[in-house]
């Protein structure tokens, strides 16, 4: 028995050591490439493989034209990885479709993945990586406001256009960075819309707002609280941290304040689900509302085990299930990757929009594609019609025009749209 166990453990350790070895070697290779040591052999092999693949399958891309690259930045690991990976899949779909149509002026499109785990510091590293790769001509993401905020200066220096599908903090487009674009309305549209719904439709007199001190959470919480106070609603504030798992202390404060409604300005639906469940254990049952980050079926509704029933969330995009143009996308996505999550449609749209802009920038001359020409083309986008159900244009700051804020309610294990507020034109 002891022998067997020792053997098994030994084998497991050897295997993991082997894996570590492989990883280390791979890391070294990457490093060598970066500092420009002799990697010609690998390059030759890569070129041969690429040639073979091109010759054997798919549309014929220009033989001597290098491919263009799109960076995908987002939280592909960590707390927010579910949302991030569903977005990445949508980006992949958009790129695959574009490649099937012949890419950009005969050049194949490739995706470079940059995982920032939602962490601002890592978002800067990702931005550096994209900036250094000269064939990256545009970036989808980063997804989190904090990540965009940290990485923006790097993207600006590189002249690399970014289109965020989900970063809603107002300040991001107020800092004068020309590379910044987003296809979601800002929190200074979302917050007031939520406040209007709370005051007018729900008739709440006292509201308690909890945020997580992050760029998104605190920003949205501030917007909601300010708009509520303007509407004459009494507001209490409290904060947690993204690492918190025990919410009893703050929930006890909420209980003492006895609000009509508890507003959760949190980016992490799993954390919100735990908070809601713990509130029930304290005998606390106020009305609940949250921002767009919480509109995530698996983690919020299923994660809260029924306790989220009746909760309201705002969303920065229509439920694309109701948009006729989106049906083909939804069917294809769900057939390939399973249920969509909140930003899948927006990620697909942003990618298609970027590719469309690249094609316009290239015109008939594929070598006219530069970071500057792509940035110009994205910025000049007028009335792009994709799958979101409204024509997309950007204002001078890079904010999207024509979007609306939608209010959804959790009913019977899914989100049902109950209200639409146009995001005002600035």
């Amino acid at each position: 028995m002891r022998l067997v166990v020792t053997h098994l453990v030994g084998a497991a350790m050897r295997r993991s050591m082997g894996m570590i070895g492989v990883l280390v070697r791979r890391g070294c290779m990457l490093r060598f490439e970066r500092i420009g040591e002799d990697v010609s052999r690998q390059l030759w092999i890569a070129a041969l493989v690429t040639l073979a693949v091109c010759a054997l399958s798919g549309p014929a891309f220009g033989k001597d034209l290098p491919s263009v690259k799109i960076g995908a930045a987002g939280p592909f690991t960590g707390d927010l990885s579910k949302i991030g990976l569903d977005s990445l899949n949508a980006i992949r779909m958009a790129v695959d479709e574009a490649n099937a149509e012949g890419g950009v002026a005969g050049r194949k499109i490739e995706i470079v993945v940059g995982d920032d785990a939602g962490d601002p510091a890592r978002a800067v590293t990702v931005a550096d990586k994209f900036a250094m790769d000269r064939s990256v001509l545009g970036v989808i993401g980063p997804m989190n406001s904090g990540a965009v905020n940290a990485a923006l200066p790097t993207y600006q220096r590189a002249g690399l256009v970014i289109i965020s599908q989900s970063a809603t903090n107002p300040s991001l487009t107020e800092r004068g960075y020309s590379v910044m674009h987003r296809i979601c309305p800002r929190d200074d549209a979302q917050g007031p819309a939520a406040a209007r719904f709370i005051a007018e439709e729900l008739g709440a007199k006292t509201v308690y707002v909890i945020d997580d001190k992050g760029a998104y959470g605190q920003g949205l919480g501030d917007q909601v609280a300010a708009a509520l106070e303007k509407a004459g609603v009494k507001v209490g504030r409290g904060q947690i941290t993204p690492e918190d798992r025990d919410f009893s202390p703050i929930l006890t404060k909420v209980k003492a304040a006895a609000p009509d409604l508890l507003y959760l300005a949190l980016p992490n639906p799993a954390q919100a689900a735990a908070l809601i469940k713990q509130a029930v254990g304290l005998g606390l049952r106020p009305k609940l509302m949250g921002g767009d980050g919480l509109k995530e079926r698996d983690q919020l509704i299923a994660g809260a085990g029924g306790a989220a029933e009746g909760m309201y969330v705002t969303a920065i995009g229509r439920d694309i299930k109701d948009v006729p143009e989106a049906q083909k996308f939804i069917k294809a996505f769900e057939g390939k990757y399973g249920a969509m999550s909140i930003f899948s449609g927006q990620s697909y749209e942003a990618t298609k929009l970027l590719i469309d802009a690249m094609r316009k920038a290239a015109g008939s001359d594929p070598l006219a594609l530069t970071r500057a020409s792509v940035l110009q083309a994205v910025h000049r986008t007028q009335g792009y019609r994709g799958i979101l159900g409204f024509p997309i244009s950007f204002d001078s700051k890079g904010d999207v025009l024509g979007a609306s804020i939608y209010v959804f309610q959790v009913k019977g294990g899914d989100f049902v749209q109950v209200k639409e507020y146009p995001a005002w034109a600035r």
Partner: protein
Amino acid sequence: MEEMLAQLPQQVVNGLTLGSVYALLALGYSMVYGILKMLNFAHGDVLMVGAFTGWGILQLFAGSGSLTANPLIVVALMLVAAVASTGLLGGLIERFAYRPLRTSSRLAPLISALGVSIIIENVAMLLTGGRAKAYQTEMLIPPTWTIQAGGATVSATRLAIFASSIAIMLALDFAVSRTMLGKAMRAVSEDLDAAEYMGVRTSRVIAATFVMGSALAGVAGVMIGLYYMQVDFIMGFSAGLKAFTSAVLGGIGNVRGAMAGGIVLGLAESLGVLFVAPVYKDAIVFSVLIAALIAKPSGLLGERVRDRV
């Protein structure tokens, strides 16, 4: 002021629940320190493994919206599985990461412990995809089962956690002070070499201590899962820190001190937010620790260590 008073009973209940879980975790931490004079940084991660084991068992029985077996049986199975997995893990860690370093300098096992902690965390991250998993506590104990007592809402979950923690602590206290194994543990803790000469099989006692301490962390893991209703791969870090703080606060190496330290810490964390924002609850915890150590360096129930000549 009125609002503070209104919160007071509930925060006391919060503190006692949390404190009893911390105490359970601190016991294992303190036992290992008491015997080897070594800070086991991987203790919190063992808790995380226990929590995930419990979650796995719960998933086996969780159909859509209801359980397929009696909740009591499920909880019992969760605890048994968690104890088995963390006990085994503790034994393995001791055998492969700490025993080979027992005779080396004090620093080596400390670094080894940090390494073990990082390995466990990363393996858990890979296995879980880095995502938090929901504990369907509501399936085991309906959240509506609550008692109103003196302005506080006490849920059945909290009562169960508190009661079983106290029971386990008392059992352990009995085991350490009355059984042969407990006697051997205390002997090894007092003087390892002398105990060896007196015929105590020290290696076995040390291994048993690790297994017991880790098993307690497993129980604490399931309880923390039931209480927080969510588990994730990183939870061990903060739990380990709290265990360390409780153990030091109570007088490290002392079983009853660990219990007291855990409960005091839980209460400090909950009651502290009456005066400052909840964001600072961890800061409160460490302020309490520093204050206590300045006032009584050996910890609440610790004895003054006499210099051995």
